[in-house]
């Protein structure tokens, strides 16, 4: 057996000696990238079509409502009701953005690359979730801001009027945040199950749309208790019930909240919290297993 003759040459590669930014910077970068992906920023024009189509529609609707209000003084929709009226567009937006955020990574198999960084698996899922929540909140919040500006500049009561208007806007924005959190956690969980964007989009729409008629059926059942609990049947109605309980007149004028949900307000809040918590938990569980194959 001869002596080994191989030599390792030092060909002058430099090591990285700069600062290492660590976990939270990875998280922040992933979140920002996710938020930009949601609106197709930094990508081709084709990727911008669908998100901005939805954004355009809600802004046009908000501008129309503002115009009606400034011309006739009639409030067609409060800020909180705006989110409810846009529910189908929100579903469509989740179906566009959710698969874009997670399904592409699953299909192209880049997850092992992500997880070889100092990035715990949970962080990846939470950053994507955060991006979707923020995008949805912007989708519902921006038009409300347009409506607020329209109302604030035409108010007859001076600064006091602006202040009252702001008092109406803030619950509306909080309600939009509730929409964003519930829809993002349910939608992203469904999207993370498949790598095919087409199937993910179809699944999200199917889940949100097929649950709506359940509420319709439960609310005509011959039992008062069942009627009052009907809104547990679908995420959209659940959000509405929580909003009706917490916001009251801002969402359901004329004090009809009692007719709709009875005394079950706290139950609705609990169920909403549980729904979000279980969806996030399942999402984290999913990312503990995914890409291990």
């Amino acid at each position, binding site marked *: 057996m001869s002596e080994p003759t191989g030599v390792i040459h030092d060909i002058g590669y430099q090591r990285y000696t700069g600062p290492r930014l660590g976990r939270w910077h990875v998280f922040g970068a992933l979140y920002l990238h996710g938020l930009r992906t949601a609106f197709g920023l930094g*990508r*081709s024009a*084709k*990727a911008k079509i*669908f998100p901005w*189509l939805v954004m355009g*529609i809600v802004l046009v609707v908000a501008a129309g409502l503002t115009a009606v209000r400034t011309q006739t003084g009639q409030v067609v929709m409060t800020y909180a009701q705006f989110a409810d009226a846009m529910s*189908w*567009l929100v*579903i*469509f937006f989740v*179906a*566009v953005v959710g698969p874009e955020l997670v399904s592409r990574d699953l299909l192209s198999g880049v997850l092992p690359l992500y997880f070889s960084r100092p990035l715990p698996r949970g962080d990846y899922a939470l950053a994507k979730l955060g991006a979707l929540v923020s995008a949805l909140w912007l989708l519902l919040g921006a038009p409300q801001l347009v409506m607020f500006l329209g109302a604030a500049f035409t108010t007859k009561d001076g600064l006091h009027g602006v202040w009252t208007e702001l008092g109406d806007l803030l619950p509306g924005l909080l309600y939009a945040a509730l929409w964003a959190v519930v829809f993002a956690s349910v939608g992203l969980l469904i999207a993370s199950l*498949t790598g*095919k*964007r*087409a*199937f993910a*989009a*179809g*699944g999200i*729409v*199917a889940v949100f*749309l*097929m649950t*709506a*008629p*359940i509420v*319709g*059926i439960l609310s*005509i*059942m*011959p039992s008062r208790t069942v009627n009052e609990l009907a809104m547990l049947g679908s995420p959209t109605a659940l959000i509405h019930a929580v909003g009706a309980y917490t916001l009251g007149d801002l969402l359901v004028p004329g004090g009809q909240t009692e007719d709709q949900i009875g005394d079950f307000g706290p139950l609705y809040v609990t169920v909403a919290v549980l729904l979000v918590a279980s969806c996030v938990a399942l999402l984290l569980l999913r990312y503990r297993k995914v890409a291990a194959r």
Partner: protein
Amino acid sequence: MSTVSWITARGLFGRRRFLLLLPLPALLLVLAIVSRSLGVDPGQWGPPVLVGLGLAVVLPVVALIVGTGVLGAEIDDGTVVHILTKPLPRWQIVLPKLAVATGVSAATVAVPLYVAGVLADSVRLGLGLAAASALGALAYSALFLVLSLLTRRPVLLGLVYVLIWEGLLGRFVDGTKVLSIQQWVIALADRIAPTELLGTTVSVPVAAVLTALVVVGSTVLAIDRLRSFSVAGETS
């Protein structure tokens, strides 16, 4: 059964994700049976179940997933080349795929709608709903099949049609109902079995003519598009 339709059917059923199609019709059945057994007035539960869930959600969503799947899935993963390079006339590719898509969607939707229709009113309503939804499945499948040849994102474009055009605009702008497959299906079902449960503003001849027009037009366009189809990798 031609080889193309055999391949298409296997592509649809061979994967586990086909099971995702089953909850929708199952829910329709469950709601109809529960409402019936609790003795709720059919005039109250009929419209939300038959139209609100059956014709407005289950039919378009199932047809969308199946219709874009028969050709779009092959285009997505590139295996469409194997069919395109065979010496087959293009219509022998499009028509079997359309037949499979229509058959699968119609079977998935018409059966639960028939049962729900029988429970709501009469066998006649059940048959009317089944026949009309089969025609609707044909129209939707033809439309979504040609969409998967015209664009790279057929599902999202199909959702724009289903959610925004039929769902959102159909509710607020009455005129758009004339150009909505959902309303044509309702009109046809109401013609076959006149009841109080279904109602639409679209007249039956208009619905019949437009349905035929969509089916024929989409199929011809799909055959023509497939003639000069270029297989490109995914961009953006």
